[in-house]
């Protein structure tokens, strides 16, 4: 009780005010953050608003234009980007760099800093959404018979749901990198249900029904209805409120700012999400040889970068004096799947480590699988060409299916 009172004492309030002010300044000094938070949504709005055909009412969109129906989607996207991508990675980086650690030696708990980050991100989200409404109404005659009360309620619930999910990610991820990996996995489905790839009204029934129950779909429906002057419906409001309550509760219950606990947990999550596989090649194999084999063996849609000596830190274990060769394999232009191939020569053998990366889990895994297959073939070819040492088991050639 005394801590509760202390938390709202005038001196504490001053600390909280300073924390929010500092976070605002830091956000203001990060151009990429401003562009993503404020610039891109407005830019998209301006682009869509400038294309005449998109501002014509369409029957398939329920009698409104694409421009009108995309406005709530942009609002949900702002919440996804700030709540899901930006917030957890900011928190992760504060944890990694020891900012939270430093703060936890002061009378003000480190959770106050996290609270300030939440507040600042919500503030930017609200400003961004106000900009969307202002620019849409001012420059493109976006006339919305807004149901103000329902709109504010829908927005508040949508913010709580998205930031709740973001805080859950931050609670699990100890580092910015892990947070981004998790957020990246969630981004595409969530963005899809917000209508980013096209208004859900045009999708056949089942997808629309799933969308009603997805957090971003419900957020879209609530915002779309209230912007159009309707009551969103109890189902939509209820779904959104449930997401808000559940994720906020999980975040509050599980969030740990202290370094000690989160590291082990993030290690587990990272191990789950980034797959590492090893292949041992007989004899001394250079990075160039591996790179050439991958280039020849992989389908043409893969890009294989030439082997480079690794410089700097490797997996956080400091600088290796004789850096191993590192080859980056990506899927062509999109780079949606990636693998980092590390070639280390030791004890007469060559160990190749393949580490998955990229934004989408299944494509990352498929890259690892393909790289592994090519290297397996290389290992066999090398074993055959070499004078086999005594009982070198010549493995029967496995025919792997795709």
């Amino acid at each position: 009780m005394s801590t509760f009172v202390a938390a709202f004492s005038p001196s504490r309030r001053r600390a909280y005010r300073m924390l929010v002010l500092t976070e605002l300044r830091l956000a203001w000094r990060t151009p990429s953050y401003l562009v993503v938070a404020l610039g891109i949504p407005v830019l998209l709005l301006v682009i869509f608003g400038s294309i005449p055909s998109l501002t014509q009412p369409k029957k398939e969109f329920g009698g409104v234009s694409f421009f009108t129906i995309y406005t709530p989607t942009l609002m949900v996207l702002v919440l996804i980007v700030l709540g899901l991508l930006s917030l957890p990675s900011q928190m992760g980086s504060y944890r990694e760099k020891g900012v939270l650690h430093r703060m936890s030696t002061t009378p003000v708990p480190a959770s106050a800093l996290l609270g300030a980050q939440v507040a600042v991100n919500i503030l930017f989200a609200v400003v961004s959404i106000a900009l969307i409404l202002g620019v849409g109404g001012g420059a493109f005659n976006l006339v919305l018979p807004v149901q103000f009360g329902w709109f504010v309620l829908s927005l508040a619930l949508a913010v709580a749901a998205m930031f709740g999910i973001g805080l859950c990610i931050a609670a699990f991820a100890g580092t910015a990198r892990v947070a981004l990996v998790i957020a990246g996995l969630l981004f595409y489905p969530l963005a899809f249900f917000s209508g980013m790839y096209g208004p859900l009204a045009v999708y056949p029934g089942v997808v629309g029904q799933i969308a009603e129950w997805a957090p971003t779909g419900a957020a879209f429906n609530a915002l779309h209805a209230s912007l159009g002057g309707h009551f969103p419906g109890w189902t939509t409001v209820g779904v959104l409120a449930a997401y808000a309550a559940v994720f906020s509760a999980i975040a509050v219950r599980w969030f740990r700012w202290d370094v000690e606990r989160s590291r082990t947990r993030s290690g587990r999550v990272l191990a789950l999400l980034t797959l590492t596989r090893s292949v041992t090649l007989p004899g001394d194999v250079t990075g160039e040889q591996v790179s050439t084999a991958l280039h020849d063996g992989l389908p043409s849609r893969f890009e294989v970068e030439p082997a480079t000596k690794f410089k700097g830190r490797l997996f956080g274990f400091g600088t290796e004096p004789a850096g191993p060769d590192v080859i980056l394999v990506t899927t062509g232009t999109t780079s949606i799947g990636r693998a980092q191939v590390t070639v280390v020569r030791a004890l007469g053998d060559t160990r190749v480590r393949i580490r998955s990366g990229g934004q989408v889990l299944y494509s990352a895994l498929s890259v690892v699988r393909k790289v592994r297959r090519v290297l397996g073939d290389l290992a066999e070819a090398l074993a055959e060409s070499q004078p086999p040492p005594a009982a070198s088991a010549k493995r029967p050639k496995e025919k792997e299916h795709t």
Partner: protein
Amino acid sequence: MAATPDTGFGGQKAPTQGPIAIDAPAVIAVEHLHKAYGATVAVDDVNFSVRAGEIFGILGRNGAGKTTTVECLSGLRVPDGGHLDVLGLDPRKDARELHELVGVQLQESALPPKIRVGEAVELYASFYRRPADGNHLLGVLGLDEKRGAYFRELSGGQKQRLSIVLALIGQPQIAILDELTAGLDPQARRETWELIEGVRDRGVTILLVTHFMEEAERLCNRVALIDHGKVIALGPPAHLGEQASTSKRVRLRASDQLPDNVLEALPEVSAVEHHGTDLVVIGSGDLVTAVVLAFDRAGLVAEDVRTEASTLEDAFLALTDAADATADGLGR
């Protein structure tokens, strides 16, 4: 004591200069502290107490358990066993109150890269009930001109000095400083030492974690040597040096060479070494007299006779070696 400018450091007015009274009250008491991370025992059994007004050093190799000890004292980690008392508070239960009274500078901590020095000081000042004058502290630590600089633009030494400012901004009674001078050049290190002494002279008790022997010798009233999670020696640096070595070293230059076997025949002498023109005689007992008399008997003159005090570093190596030997003997 050279005239120190009015630094305005925190703490009480009365400057405690000179030796610390033996009966000064203990402000930190550590009893049987134990902390393990999984199967790794970081701190096994650590006991010591720190008296008001002293600079107390915790010395040890990397991984000896120094940082874990101070993190437990700072309320950042929960000990698995033992009893801690800091200014009558339990670091775990009374963390908030403790942090008002104890300023901490930790190794693995940082500020956001794009915060300005002045802003960081203002922010941290807002955390405390009775903050010190931040601008004044920045001036004292020579960061006046850096007030508008981003944290990431500071050099290693400047970051450390800012870290000291932040540790002192709450006018603490105790400052815990972990590896304060690691990564600093000798000049910056010496300047930092003077600053620490300045802080102590304002009545702040300092707990200093270091692995620099020279630093401990120069600054600390008392040190605790920690190895394998245990205190293996405790006392003033000079005493530890004597305690560690029973052998003495006498260095001299002779007008003419005296055959080694003459010296080695002396009961006090255990070894004779030649270092360039210098002769170093190692032994025990009244070594200087024995050696000088031996030269005199041979009709030679021993010049520049110096006894070499064994340093804290010798003590440290001797003691940790002994600890290793014991550990090996136990089959570790």
